[in-house]
């Protein structure tokens, strides 16, 4: 709390200083600077900094046109997300407001306003600095120098401009949009363009947690969340330890054809997963090869429907995931095993340690220390491991106790996907997305505070 207060007062202080600086720039500035308050880039143009001036002017023109020419109609409706529904007057369809675009473009306009304010401030600062330079009798950087600095001193701006813009439009904007959707009633009965949707506050969150909602949303959510965590745990640590075992086995002194064994394992990384996983999924189907072989060998008399039972489906998915995951761990561990000094093992052997003891005392601590971040990323990757679940059995089997198409092997992300694609239940999908984010963030924070390799970087040296 205290820290937050300090943060707030720090911000206010900064804002105060900034406003003061803007005022001083205006009062002390010459007429070129004063006019630049209205026409961005004016001062720069007058002082011969054509490149800066023109780009400022163009940005101002473009943003103003976007805000007032295009976005204003959306921004004014953002509090209601539209009031006129598409309806028919006689035989003519009259198109009403489109809540989707009101929200999307509304957010975009708000961002454009912020960008304009930032540029305007930058523009004032450039004017102020230029005046300072001139009054000190120095020369302003020429156009050519400005351009050249984009490849030298300001090369970071050149490099990052497009990537940052791309991430903004195709990641940040959609995420802000979807977070907003979590607070609306956008679903199959409120679909633009024919219907409107509007703000509903925290209702979707309440529904997901099973407070006063219809159906068994609460139970289903915690059921899916539980399996997601369980799956991520097993998928991560089983592949980790078994992968390490395989790597040590291949690395063992006296084993020949090391490269061959590795190549065979690595095949599962190389072959696109939709080919291998779809085929393996079918292998375990009722009419699949596995059942056929088990019957032929007389182990079972009727085929087992592995995918129809919650427990067998879950176990099977974890096992098949080993097939995908072990080679990956094997590759990483192999690389790391070579970093362990051979003398450590040598002295352990002289002290009379057997193979298992030296694994427990040397290999394992080293591995856990070095691969801490790897385990974290693997765990988070598994929380969101869409492909394995979806290509194998689409989150089935379904159960009467679960609502909204959720199945026994559904992860939060596959459930989110189903809700988007099959049910068009965007509002709940958005809430689930936020939940996934919270789970990921909490786990990352905890692990980061516990990890030895993050805490003290020199620990094992």
């Amino acid at each position, binding site marked *: 709390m205290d820290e937050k207060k300090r943060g707030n007062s720090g911000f206010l202080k900064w804002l105060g200083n900034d406003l003061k600086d803007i005022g001083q720039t205006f009062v002390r500035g010459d007429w070129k600077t004063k006019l630049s308050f209205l026409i961005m880039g004016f001062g720069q143009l007058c002082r011969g900094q054509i490149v800066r001036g023109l780009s400022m002017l163009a940005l101002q023109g473009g943003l103003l046109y976007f805000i007032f020419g295009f976005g204003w109609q959306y921004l004014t409706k953002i509090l209601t997300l539209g009031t006129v529904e598409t309806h028919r007057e006689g035989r003519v369809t009259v198109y009403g407001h489109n809540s*989707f675009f009101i929200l999307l473009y509304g957010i975009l306009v708000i961002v454009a306003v912020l960008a304009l304010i930032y540029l305007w401030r930058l523009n004032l600062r450039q004017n102020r600095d230029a005046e300072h330079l001139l009054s000190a009798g120095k020369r302003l950087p020429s156009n050519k120098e400005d351009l050249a600095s984009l*490849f*030298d001193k300001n*090369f*970071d*701006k*050149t*490099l*990052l401009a*497009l*990537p*940052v813009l*791309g*991430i903004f439009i*195709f*990641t940040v*904007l*959609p995420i802000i949009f*979807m977070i907003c959707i979590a607070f609306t009633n956008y679903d199959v009965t409120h679909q633009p363009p024919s219907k409107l949707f509007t703000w509903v506050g925290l209702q979707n969150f309440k529904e997901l947690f099973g407070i006063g909602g219809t159906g068994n949303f609460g139970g289903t959510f915690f059921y899916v969340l539980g399996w997601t965590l369980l799956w991520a745990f097993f998928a991560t640590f089983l592949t980790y330890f078994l992968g390490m075992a*395989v790597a040590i086995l291949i690395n063992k002194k006296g*084993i020949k054809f090391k490269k061959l064994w590795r190549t*065979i*394992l*690595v*095949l599962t*990384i*190389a*072959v*696109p*997963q*939709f*080919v*291998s996983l779809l*085929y*393996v999924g*079918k*292998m375990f189907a009722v*009419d699949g090869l596995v059942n*056929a072989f088990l019957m*032929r060998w007389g182990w079972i008399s009727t085929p087992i429907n592995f995918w129809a039972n919650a427990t067998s489906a879950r176990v099977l998915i974890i096992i098949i995931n080993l*097939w995908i995951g072990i080679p990956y761990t094997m*590759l*990483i561990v192999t*690389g*790391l095993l070579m970093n362990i000094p051979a003398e450590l093992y040598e002295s352990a052997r002289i002290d009379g340690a057997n193979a298992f003891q030296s694994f427990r005392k040397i290999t394992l601590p080293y591995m856990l220390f*070095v*691969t*801490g*971040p*790897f385990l974290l*990323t693997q765990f988070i990757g598994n929380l*969101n491991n*869409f*492909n394995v679940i*979806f290509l194998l059995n689409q989150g089935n089997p379904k159960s009467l106790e679960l609502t909204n198409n959720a199945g026994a092997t559904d992860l939060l992300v596959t459930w989110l996907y189903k809700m*988007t*694609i099959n049910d068009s239940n965007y509002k709940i999908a958005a809430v689930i*997305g936020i939940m*996934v984010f919270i789970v990921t*963030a909490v786990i990352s924070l905890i692990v980061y505070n516990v990890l030895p390799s993050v805490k003290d970087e020199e620990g094992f040296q």
Partner: protein
Amino acid sequence: MKRRKRIVNAICYIVLILISVIWLFPFFGLVLQSFRGESGGMVSYLVPQEWSMKNYQFLFGSNSKFLKWYSNTLIIALFVSILQTIVIICVSYALSRMRFRGRKALMNIWLVLGMFPGFLTMICLYFLLKALHLTEAGAIPGLILISVASSGMGYYVCKGYFDTIPRALDEAAIIDGATRAQILWKMIIPMSKPIIIYTALVAFMAPWCDYIFASYVAFGYENSYNVAVAMTRWVWTNDYQGFFTRFCAGGILVAIPVTVLFMSLQKYYVEGVTGGAVKG
């Protein structure tokens, strides 16, 4: 003692052979099924009763759009691979070599953004692409755009590699009068061949598996499918029996070039993956 060692080694070999059989079995089955002449879905035997090339003939025949889908995927993979590598190099260089205001903030924001599940934004991205007319018939450039636009966030491995190149080299080059752009182009890139190959390889492989977003953006427009979308639909239709052996044949045709490429560049992949895992 020696005898004991031999027994231990023999057990190790048996385990390894067992592992190899388990690992290779599905691929073995896939190849055999692709040459199966008799129709039907899964069958209870491994070796086909009738050997035939007709599944492959179907794929290349006029009744199938397999070649179109294949070239779609190849185009996406090539463009994504090249453009994504360029973006990642740019971002990594800026974050690794240059110090500017907001650098830490930028990295933290991207880290947090990465914690949101990718499918969350699917609907929004779809409508963004639609507004640009990059869905259905325009799905191919649309998919390339989406994959490349956000790729800057995947800079970790590459930046980690750049960080290991001593900064003293940069300083020496600056004293010699080189600009930042020249340092990147003439020094860092030539020194980073392994990581560039790794980045390009990973970017090239991803589109071959992209089912989710590709199917959403193509929105039922068959000419814009990639192989994953088209062939997954074969397996998931109710009468998958008719298409199962064709799926196997198509799967082989997809897997072979990708696998060969991967295997030939395996060295770089291992290097990138190991480096990335340790640095996080």
